């Protein structure tokens, strides 16, 4: 489902080359929850952004369902990303002026021909957001906001869910609730790639990919 070959990423800062990823190879077949762990600045988030097709690597290839993401042009990659990959961020990134229903349906803007309202209803019920549909994000708790972000990520029925510190701003109860949703998604055949500092959460994942100084140091 997701194959990463010799991914490298570097950038120049004050005339100095900084290497963030130094050649990562990873193959994740089928579903499951895969935790990406490591100290801050080890390249976890960069790796996730590259896997999701949001950040162009300096070198290497990313295959999603055998499709090389970075061989596609900008809008084609966006389209593929919208249909195959869902994102969840630590800070939720909900659109502040849209209500919850509209925030969830924001994913449908890239697929205007598909009727996703029923899918939205289904997710709203499943994530317990029914009573909050007409509220704007600032009126919601962090846990509710992350659930809205999850609903938005899952609306297009993606194959891969990329989550960068999804529970970083949540308490244990809400963190567990989010993990349960990941679990359900992976049980249905989806792949979750989750960067986290939470060791307990990582332990519950199907695999743990440990990063250090831009390298994948272990895969358990």
């Amino acid at each position, binding site marked *: 489902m997701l194959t990463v070959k010799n991914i490298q990423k570097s950038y120049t800062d004050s005339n100095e080359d900084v290497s963030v990823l130094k050649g990562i190879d990873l193959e994740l077949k089928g579903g499951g929850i895969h935790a990406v762990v490591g100290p801050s600045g080890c390249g976890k988030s960069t790796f996730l952004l590259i896997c999701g097709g949001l950040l162009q690597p300096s070198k290497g290839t990313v295959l999603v369902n055998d499709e090389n993401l970075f061989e596609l042009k900008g809008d084609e990659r966006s389209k593929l990303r919208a249909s195959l990959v869902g994102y969840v961020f630590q800070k939720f990134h909900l*659109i*502040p002026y849209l209500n919850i229903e*509209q925030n969830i349906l924001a994913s449908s803007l890239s697929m205007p021909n598909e009727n996703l*309202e029923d899918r939205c209803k289904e997710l709203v019920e499943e994530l317990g957001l029914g009573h909050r549909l007409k509220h704007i994000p600032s009126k919601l708790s962090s846990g509710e906001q992350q659930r809205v972000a999850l609903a938005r990520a899952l609306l297009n029925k993606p194959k891969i869910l990329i989550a960068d510190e999804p529970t970083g701003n949540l308490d244990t109860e809400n963190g567990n609730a989010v993990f349960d949703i990941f679990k359900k998604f992976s049980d249905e055949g989806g792949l979750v790639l989750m960067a986290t500092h939470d060791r307990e959460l990582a332990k519950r994942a199907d695999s743990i990919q440990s990063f250090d100084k831009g390298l994948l140091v272990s895969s358990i």
Partner: protein
Amino acid sequence: MKPLKLRHLLIAELKFRWASSLMAILAVLVACACVCGSFIALKVYDKETQMSIGELQERSRERMEALESEARIFSKSLGFNIFIYNGSQELGDFYNTDTSTHFLTEQQADVLAKSGFELLNHHLPVLRERFHWKEYGGDVIIGGIKGEIFIKRKWQKPLEVELKPSEVHLGHALAKKLSVEKGAKVMVLGKSYDVTQVREHLGSKDDITLYMNLGDAQSVLNRPGQISGVLAISCNCAAGDVDPIRRGVQRLIPEADVVEFVVRSKARQQARQAVAKTSSAELKDISNSRGDLRLSLSRFSFLFSLFMGLATLVLLVFLYGSNANDRRGEISILKTLGLSTCSIYGLFFAKASVLSLIGCIVGVLLSCSISLCFIKPDLGISLLDFTPLAAIVIASGWAMSFLASWLPARSAVRQDPAVVLSEEG
């Protein structure tokens, strides 16, 4: 649950950032109102100029008409002012002796009358000669007149009555000396004539003139078929310039010459020409001075519009740029969700279009309505007169807003969502 469209996003964002949206509307509104107002002022100025010139032309026309009418009345009161005579006649002798030495013929007078020569009116053939009237006991002037043989328009009345054979009019001095009145009879060379009128005292040689029928005069003076000349009135258009009349007459009667002998009508004509010249100069002065001011006003309007346009453009670029900056996160997330480049451009351009159209339309309507309150009603300007101007201002305002949103939209489209989302956590 309704499907989400880009327009919902647009409307929600406009409501959410209402203050900056209102600022953009106000910027466009003020610019459009000012630009529209300055061009309305120019239009009103043009209309006023048109009216002033029209009024001046009308006044000038009325004055000219009054002068023409006065000249007509004056000319008529003066009687004939043109004398057509045989060119070989020495006029000095004629004035001294009241007797012609060279004559024209009645046929020649008829030729002139039948030609309908347009520069002359009221043709009166006349035979004038000093005559020793025995029965009177002294010299008199015989004026033989036939009646007018040409009057240009049917409704015009003859200036001189027609004298029938055996009828005479006596000059005032003659009647007094003879002690006769209208209805009396007088003898001329043994033939009796009826006095049908005693003419008023004029203080001229007319007072010693015996007016007779032309045929009778020719018989008394033994000048069959001959006339001293033709009296006529020149048309106003030619008065003061006898040359065209002379040329026209000589085409028909080569040996004839023409003299204009009433100088007061000439003075009137010159006065008319002076008035016409003054009016024309006044008109030119007004046109020039208003034209100069119009040029200054149009330059001012142009520069003012340019300044307002540029100032608004800068303000809009700042507002839209600031808006694009505020929206970095949401644009990044929309890009992450797969929204195309075109759709993101569309969000910015649609917002710019909506705000500018509201601002332009309200600004133009306000400007036109306020202007109408201050425009004099007699200029006849209505709201509809501003339609082309309003359309141009609205289109320009919209284009300017569109242009101002271009750079912010471009920067939003080009921003890397990975960088933005990483920065924002």
